[in-house]
């Protein structure tokens, strides 16, 4: 995932515009099946099948979670979401996720900058390395951390069942997000403005603050949002190393898992469903808010 999604471009001369004679419908020629019948708009069936697929695979299960969470009404939902252990887990989750969001903002931009503006031997290798956390299973990341910070740590650091190890795990799995978001924008950035500012006597810091930062702003926010959303739901990479101690090192995903595992037959209780919804809502709103800010930012700087 090295490219952010490109926004739909309305008129680039390549996408079929509305109007006669465009799109592959009733083509002229000897093979034309040109009967005068009304056809569905192009691609309707495909969209319908695809939507059905998405509904069954993605929407249906998520709807079930919402339904279960609200099973006993909003009161039960609130109680489940604010139970002491749940609140503690959520607080921890949000704090560590916020920390790595900030850390990634800095390190991700730094790495993207070095990858785009610098030249050194092995740069291609380093560039490919960035995607490693995407390729590695989270449980493998967890066991790697275990070997590094466990009882026979080569670094002499024993961080198992502590809070810092959660931050370290999250730093590992969220590394690519900001880098890959900012990189393409930096690559395409027009350097003339920077050069002009330099000739006018602006310091590097000023140039960065007033030209580069606004340019990469939306992408940076997008990357931070993705990193945050990933971090709050992270499970596999912390499961072996944070000790899962309620009120101390248990994150919300572990709290939910514990609720399921402690029930017979893995039945899902309201607490698990409610906290799942909380996670979903937070992720949704963070991504939404960042998108809105990014849109407003880019509109503000658009010519």
């Amino acid at each position, binding site marked *: 995932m090295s490219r952010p999604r490109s926004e739909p471009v309305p008129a680039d001369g390549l996408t079929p515009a509305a109007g006669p004679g465009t*799109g592959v419908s009733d083509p002229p020629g000897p093979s034309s099946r040109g009967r005068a019948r009304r056809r569905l708009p192009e691609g309707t069936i495909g969209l319908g099948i695809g939507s059905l697929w998405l509904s069954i695979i993605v929407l249906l299960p998520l709807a079930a979670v919402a339904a279960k969470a609200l099973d006993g009404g909003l009161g039960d939902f609130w109680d489940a979401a604010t139970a002491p252990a749940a609140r503690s887990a959520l607080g921890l989750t949000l704090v560590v996720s916020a920390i790595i969001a900030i850390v990634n903002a800095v390190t991700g931009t730094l790495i993207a900058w070095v990858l785009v503006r610098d030249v050194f031997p092995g740069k291609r290798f380093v560039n490919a390395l960035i995607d490693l956390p995407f390729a590695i299973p989270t449980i493998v990341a967890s066991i790697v951390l275990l070997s590094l910070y466990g009882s026979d740590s080569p670094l002499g650091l024993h961080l198992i069942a502590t809070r810092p190890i959660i931050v370290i795990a999250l730093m590992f799995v969220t590394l690519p997000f900001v880098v890959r978001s900012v990189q393409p924008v930096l690559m395409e950035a027009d350097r003339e403005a920077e050069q002009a500012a330099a000739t006018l006597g602006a310091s590097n810091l000023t140039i960065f603050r007033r030209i580069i930062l606004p340019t990469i702003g939306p992408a940076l926010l997008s990357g931070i949002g*993705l990193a945050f959303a990933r971090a709050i739901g992270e499970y596999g990479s912390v499961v072996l190393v944070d000790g899962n101690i309620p009120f101390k090192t248990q994150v919300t995903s572990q709290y939910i898992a514990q609720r399921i595992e402690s029930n017979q037959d893995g039945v899902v209780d309201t607490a698990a469903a409610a906290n799942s919804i909380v996670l979903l809502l937070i992720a949704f709103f963070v991504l939404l808010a960042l998108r809105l800010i990014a849109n407003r930012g880019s509109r503000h700087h658009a010519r």
Partner: protein
Amino acid sequence: MRVSRRAQLSLRTLALAYLTILLLIPLGIIFYRTFEHGVSAVVDSITTPAAVSAFWLTIEIVGIAVVLNTIFGVLLALALVRSKIRGKGIIQAVVDLPFAVSPVVVGVSLILVYGTGGWFGTWFVDHGVQIIFSVPGMVLATIFVTVPFVVREVEPVLREIGTEQEEAAATLGASRWQAFWRITLPSIRWGLGYGVILTIARALGEYGGVSLVSQSKPGESQTLTLLVKSRYDNLDVSGAYAAATLLMLIAVVALIIMTVLDRKKTNA
């Protein structure tokens, strides 16, 4: 921005140091730890019956997820780019939804639909089909988390190449299927390939979701990721390292393929 040589070197050093500490050293350690007691011990560890069956189960689940998501992914990408329906934004948002869902929540959601006491749980039990705590549930969890990749990678490619070639083919008498098979598909192959390898990598690494919907029975419902956890739980740490290294080697291969395909995709 004229960055002084010294500043440039400092930035480079900082970035590389961060990456080394965060990525390279941990990987180095795990390789070292795994092969500490010799290669043959590792080979033994990954050729136990449990490991072998975990491997094949993983391949099976990944295979199903890849095939289904490729078919529906290309279909959705085509529909999203080519159709003139409103509401495509919603569909795109739903496609991206799995990125925002914690793997644990994936497991929870599937149990609530297909498990006992779930929406369709009793229907499946009555018909003798076990979804949760069995392979189908694990497949569903894996499919869920890999929905976005093919769609997101094929969509921009489709948008860029436009419909001219297919329209030309249609005027020359090609059927829709012919046009798709001979023109569309080849022109999206690099983007598609990249999406597929991302799907494979993610599916291989799925843990949280499958751990909730599986009983992790060796030989039955235990994937490689679950094997790592199970060995760790049974205090077979070196066994866990071995399985983890196997997964990591596969991940590195996937990463190499990803890099190659990414370059082909950008240069195409």
